[in-house]
């Protein structure tokens, strides 16, 4: 018997080693199919999953124990820029970014594994939203509108792709979205009259698969944009695998404040567009702001929710848009189910039969100035909302804001083409009942606009931040504060995950990434 045992072990050992090696190699690679069902020990994409709900089913941290949250670790980037990204966690490695920079840090030790710095460039360094992971690669975009694919082992460049020409005024802050073998990425560029571009690349080869134009290059025959350029897709979209549709919010038209130069609704600017990710073809579009003249893009997160709507199960898309209106769309066809303001607005004369707010011409920028709510920064912005399925609340970083808008012929028809200035703004975290658009609660976070995104969890917690450098945990049902920590200006996209049986919550505070957890059991 002992002999037999020994023999078995002798044969088994190499097999075990081989299996372990294969498993280890596989474990370091992120299969895009994982994104359909992300494991709890990860945060695999900008939104955490394809729905954009920024909601976690993790339940260790509860309203009862959240006051015990304590610092697990902090990672300092040493940069001047605040963190505006959402961290991504895959295989025990956290990726964080600032413009031109990616850090890979070990999630257990918070030690830097590698750092990549993109060559110095002269494009806009306004922000960076985060990486996309694909197999053994880490993709991110740069201020000079490159899509860079790094080897996840050591941060060495494997692909360096020019998405658009930075010299023409394009830049990119976008966290790419992986759908199967598509790496989908957008650019930005508001100061020049540039067509709105979304592209899909093969992440294995770096080869271009398709280009979608929200506004066509000037001179394109049969264009419906009314002469508008712009409509940049600078935020990460969401995806419905059953319908095989990618949903992306598009930016404002250019020239920005001069609407006379581009008559009509200017599709598909300030819109939510549904695109087939295999072909780049438009399935439908919905304009949140037809003929925008206030810089209110509809780039905000299109949150996908399956649930009841007036007694009927529906596939819905929710967006709290920069123009101050909350929309519910049927995401199979783009028809509006709800259109309702969630913050101070005074610019629409009516809601049309298609659920679109129609601009009041008197509130368009004029020579003598018009007092408009919201202001140019909008009633919300790129800051991620969080959706809590249990309460049906969409928690949004909202702002009641007023600004003055000017346009005269002398301002021209290129780029900004107008003048505007902010008068007053005050921010709140606001919980919207998804079926009705009613505000269930509003939690003041101070003067100015917020910077923090929102995360909700299954235990009824909402994590976010205020305008006075506090990270916050609120009770989702009523907005009551349960915990706070003064960590610096809280950035976008708190995330949560469970590692080795412990739940962590990550916040950007200033230029440092903070991990909080319950005290370790001894």
């Amino acid at each position, binding site marked *: 018997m002992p002999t037999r045992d020994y023999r078995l072990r002798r044969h088994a050992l190499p097999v075990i080693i081989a299996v372990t090696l294969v498993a280890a190699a596989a474990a370091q690679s992120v299969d895009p199919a994982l994104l359909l069902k992300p494991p709890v020990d990860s945060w695999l994409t900008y939104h955490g999953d394809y729905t954009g709900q920024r909601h976690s089913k993790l339940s260790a941290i509860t309203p009862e124990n959240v006051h015990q949250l304590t610092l697990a670790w902090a990672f300092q980037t040493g940069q001047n820029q605040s963190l505006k990204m959402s961290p991504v966690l895959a295989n025990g490695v956290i990726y964080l970014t600032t413009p031109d920079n990616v850090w890979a840090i070990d999630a257990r030790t918070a030690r830097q594994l590698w750092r990549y710095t993109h060559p110095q460039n002269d494009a806009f360094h306004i922000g960076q939203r985060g990486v996309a992971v694909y197999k053994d690669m880490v993709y991110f975009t740069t201020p000079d509108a490159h899509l860079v694919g790094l080897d996840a082992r050591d941060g060495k460049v494997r692909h360096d792709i020019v998405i658009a020409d930075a010299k023409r005024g394009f830049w990119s802050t976008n966290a790419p979205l992986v759908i199967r073998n598509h790496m989908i990425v957008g650019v930005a560029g508001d100061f020049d009259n540039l067509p709105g571009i979304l592209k899909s690349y093969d992440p294995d080869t770096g080869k271009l698969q398709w280009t979608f134009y929200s506004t066509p290059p000037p001179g394109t025959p049969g264009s419906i944009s009314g002469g508008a350029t712009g409509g940049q897709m600078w935020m990460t979209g969401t995806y419905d695998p059953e319908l095989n549709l990618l949903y992306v919010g598009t930016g404002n038209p250019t020239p920005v404040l001069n609407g006379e130069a581009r008559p009509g609704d200017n599709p598909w600017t300030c819109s939510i567009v549904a695109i087939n990710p295999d072909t780049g073809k438009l399935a439908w579009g919905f304009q949140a702001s037809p003929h925008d003249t206030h810089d209110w893009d509809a780039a905000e997160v299109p949150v996908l929710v399956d649930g009841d709507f007036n007694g009927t199960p529906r596939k819905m898309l929710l967006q709290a848009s920069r123009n101050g209106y909350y929309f519910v769309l049927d995401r199979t066809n783009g028809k509006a189910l709800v259109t309702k303001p969630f913050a101070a607005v*005074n610019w629409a004369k009516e809601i049309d039969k298609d659920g679109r707010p129609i601009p009041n011409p008197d509130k368009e920028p004029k020579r003598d100035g018009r007092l408009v709510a919201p202001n140019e920064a909008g009633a919300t912005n790129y800051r991620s909302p969080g959706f809590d399925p249990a309460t049906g609340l969409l928690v949004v970083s909202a702002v009641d804001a007023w600004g003055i808008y000017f346009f005269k012929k002398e301002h021209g028809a290129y780029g900004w083409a107008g003048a505007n200035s902010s*008068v007053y703004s005050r921010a709140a975290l606001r919980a919207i009942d998804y079926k009705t658009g009613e505000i269930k609660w509003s939690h003041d976070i101070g003067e100015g606009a917020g910077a923090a995104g929102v995360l909700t969890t299954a235990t009824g917690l909402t994590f976010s931040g205020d305008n006075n450098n506090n990270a916050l945990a609120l009770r989702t049902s009523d907005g009551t504060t349960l915990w706070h920590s003064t960590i610096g200006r809280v950035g976008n996209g708190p995330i949560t995950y469970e590692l080795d049986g412990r739940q962590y919550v990550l916040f950007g505070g200033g230029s440092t990434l903070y991990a909080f957890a319950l005290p370790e059991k001894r």
Partner: protein
Amino acid sequence: MTSRKKWVWGIFPMRAGRIVPTPVLVSAAAIAFICALASAVAQGQGRGAASPASKPPPATLTPQSYPPEQIQAGQARFGSECGFCHGRDAGGGESGPDLIRSALVAQDVRGDKIAPVIRQGRPDKGMPGSNLSDSDIAAIVAFIHDAKTKAESEGGGRRTVDVADLQTGNAEAGKAYFNGAGGCAKCHSLTSGDFAKIGARYEGLALLHRLLYPGSGGRGSGPAPARPTATVTTRDGQVVTGKLVQLDEFTILLTDANGWSRSWPVKQVRISVDNPLQAHVDQLAKYTDKDMHDVFAYLQTLR
């Protein structure tokens, strides 16, 4: 009329299903801005300033010239590091002021004033500091001076709002609104203080910002006239009154009558805040554009 005085215990009140203005506070940034302006006033730059965009830019005091290649390099660095806020042509952008019209730029000689601002930033106003190299900063300085020279020769920036643009209101109607529906006369008197000459002190966009929300509109639009007064009552009965610096749901910070900065946890004290600007905030949702232009026309007559 909303009471401008509010008592709060502990955290701010929240009412389900309603968007309610919460007790008023002033951000640290706004206060720091006021302090910056106070020093500008002390140097004789603050009073009588019109909107930056309503007047010709201040002339460069010490004319300077730079090599074209340095200007070109500076243009690229400026576009990358500064352009999003200050505009790619330095003429002002979404959140940063027009540098062509900046008094600091007008006084700068080869970066002696600009370079420290680039390095240290103005964190209180949202401008980060920078660790750019000396040569990058020198190039940016060269570009800003060159952009200013060009803008001066072209007779102003393209984003200007001129005083003449704002003359669509009716002063009589504005006076009626001021004394009637607008409720302005409840706080503002023409017989005391210097309000009676507001039209001589500000003009154009600066006056419009003054009207809507004093302290908004950037440096040229003048300081906020008054900070909220806060009174803190501690549990042992001590009462401290001062100028509110910061208040959030956790902490209050004020400057007391003797000039000391003092801070308490909100839940341990009773707080009363009297914010004279609350009426301006409340009015923003009530103005029509005609009201705004009429009151503007009326204020212009107060000289």
